[in-house]
């Protein structure tokens, strides 16, 4: 018999699944529709033309740009956030609360206001638009990477490093054999979040890029601003879901692989129990 708490938990989980999946249903329907009057419950005619149209709109190159942007933001913001988090966690920073507040500020400030101001600076510096976008997005991603890594460092026990040193590991060996694997779950989460900041950004890309650096969100937005493009917008949106989903799966797999050794016995039997179950060892 199941207890009420379990039932409640199950119901909540079911609700969340519905909550997250419901918006995807019209997306999938629109992407596959050739004609949908809006009066009918389902599209009248089906085809995959929307995906071809989306490709024709330059979504391939936009996808590559977005991937590159997300990856570059992750590559820059994750180690930087990790270093900041390490300093905060170790207490080597003076006024750590102030520093943490400054690092988290980009989340609190309206992006639009910041980017309008920064855009002037970037224009004066004559930086190429993609570099400018990257710099601003790295700053926008830092709060997330710093926060996630701060939590990871908070749970990290430096005594492991002392132990490793006395066992013969150099500082580099400690970083590679001990620190990185132990912090890997945090690094994976931070990388994923930073990637998402680059992948899903619209405002910074639009303002700093002047509309000429077309990424997936820019493309989706411009397609969505017209009328009658619903199938194309839906196809683009579905395409935009794929890379983050893949990245999330990869991060989850990596986390499992690094927190558990490759060889592991399935059964939870401990040695004492194993001994007790040996015949004659009552």
């Amino acid at each position, binding site marked *: 018999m199941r207890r009420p708490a379990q039932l409640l938990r199950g119901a909540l989980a079911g609700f969340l699944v519905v909550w997250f999946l419901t918006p995807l249903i019209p997306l999938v329907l629109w992407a596959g529709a050739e004609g949908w009057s809006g009066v009918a419950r389902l599209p009248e005619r089906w085809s995959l033309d929307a995906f071809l149209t989306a490709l024709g709109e330059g979504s391939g190159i936009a996808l590559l740009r977005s991937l590159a942007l997300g990856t570059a933001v992750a590559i820059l913001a994750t180690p930087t956030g990790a270093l900041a988090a390490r300093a905060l966690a170790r207490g080597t920073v003076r006024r750590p609360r102030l520093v943490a507040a400054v690092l988290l500020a980009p989340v609190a400030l309206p992006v639009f206001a910041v980017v309008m101001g920064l855009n002037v600076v970037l224009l004066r510096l004559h930086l190429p638009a993609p570099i400018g976008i990257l710099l601003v997005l790295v700053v926008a991603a830092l709060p997330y990477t710093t926060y996630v890594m701060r939590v990871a460092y908070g749970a990290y026990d430096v005594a492991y490093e002392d132990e490793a*040193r*006395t066992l013969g590991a150099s500082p580099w060996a400690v970083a590679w054999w001990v620190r990185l694997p132990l912090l890997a779950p945090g690094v994976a989460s931070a990388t994923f979040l930073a990637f998402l900041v680059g992948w899903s950004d619209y405002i910074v890309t639009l303002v700093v890029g002047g509309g000429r650096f077309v990424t997936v969100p820019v493309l989706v937005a411009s397609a969505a601003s017209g009328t009658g493009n619903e199938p194309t917008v839906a196809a683009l949106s579905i395409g935009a879901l794929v890379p983050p989903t893949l990245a999330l799966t990869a991060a989850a797999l990596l986390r499992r692989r690094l927190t558990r050794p490759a060889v592991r016995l399935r059964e939870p039997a401990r040695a004492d129990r194993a001994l007790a179950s040996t015949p004659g060892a009552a």
Partner: protein
Amino acid sequence: MSTHLTLQGLTRHYPGTDAAALSGLDLTVPAGSCLALLGPSGSGKTTVLRLASGLDRPDAGDVLLDGRSVLGVAPEHRGMAMVFQRPLLFPHRNVLDNVAFAARVRRTPRRQARAEAKEYLDLVHLSDLGHRHPSDLSGGQQQRVAVARALAARPHVLMLDEPFSALDTPLREEMHELVRQIREALDPTIVLVTHDQAEAAALAEEVAVLSEGRLVQQDAVDRIYTRPRSLLVARLMGGRNEVPGEVHGHHHHSILGSIALPVDVRPSDGPGVLVFRQEAAHVTDVDDSDADARGTVTAVRVIGARRLLTIRPDRIDGDARALTDDLHIHAETPPGHRAGSGARVGLRLSPHALTVVPAAASPPGQVGRTPPATSAARTVQAPTESVR
């Protein structure tokens, strides 16, 4: 594997603290011997290990291995493997690969490193558990793996920092036996930090007593029990009997009367405290003509098979200064001894187990009593919990 370790004038003052964590510590640990560092918490025991192993740098002093200074040598090249109170097994490696860690960071091929690791797992009787995840092991097993991992690094000196204090008593005795076996098999030089005098005595040839960052006494186990140099050492080692009095002509005069001192105990004449172990006070009949003192049993405490009697000694009149009403003698009796509360008994003191130390400023019982084994009740937390 055996190396002679010498510490010379080691001093460490942590910034922002009033007193030095360690001041001018001199210690020698002969090759293949086991030295126990004993002292209350905060006495600098762990600082000694950190400075010796290179995890921390001394402000002054030197660390010598076989007579050569290793101050400029990084911890990973000093060859002083450490076992901490927590096992600190790497949660991302299974048991075998934990033991193989030292070989792997030295770039030994994986297969060979694992083969060697297996031998060390054999040594701690856990060869069947190599493929387990550390969190699947019990606290005692985890600590065995930690010992195997440290030994597999083939250290010049093995450093044990209260390694067994989180284990319960039977497990701790098992670990003591394991250390004895390891010493027989590998003959390593060992420095053991502990706050448990019984553990120090069980494992080490020599005990170094630390207090407030200073070495108070380094001596063989037997001598540190029978010839403590101060009340502090006597109390830290669990000694219970302190009889204030005066020394004249190689005799100690007190409420117990005049007691002859051993030949090698030569205190200067004047005030002095007679110190002897409760194990060295033998309870006899009250009319025993050879008794050194007589008295009345006021309390009996059972300690396993033995019993600890608290005895109020009869006054031997003549020296009024030494008379204190709250002076009690403690004596342990073997199983089967009947004397109960209120009984009149005689006391014989083992003549070789007596010594005289200078009087202390603080009253007895305030300093250095080893706290009841609260640490034994602490559970060993699997290190993986914190990093998942």
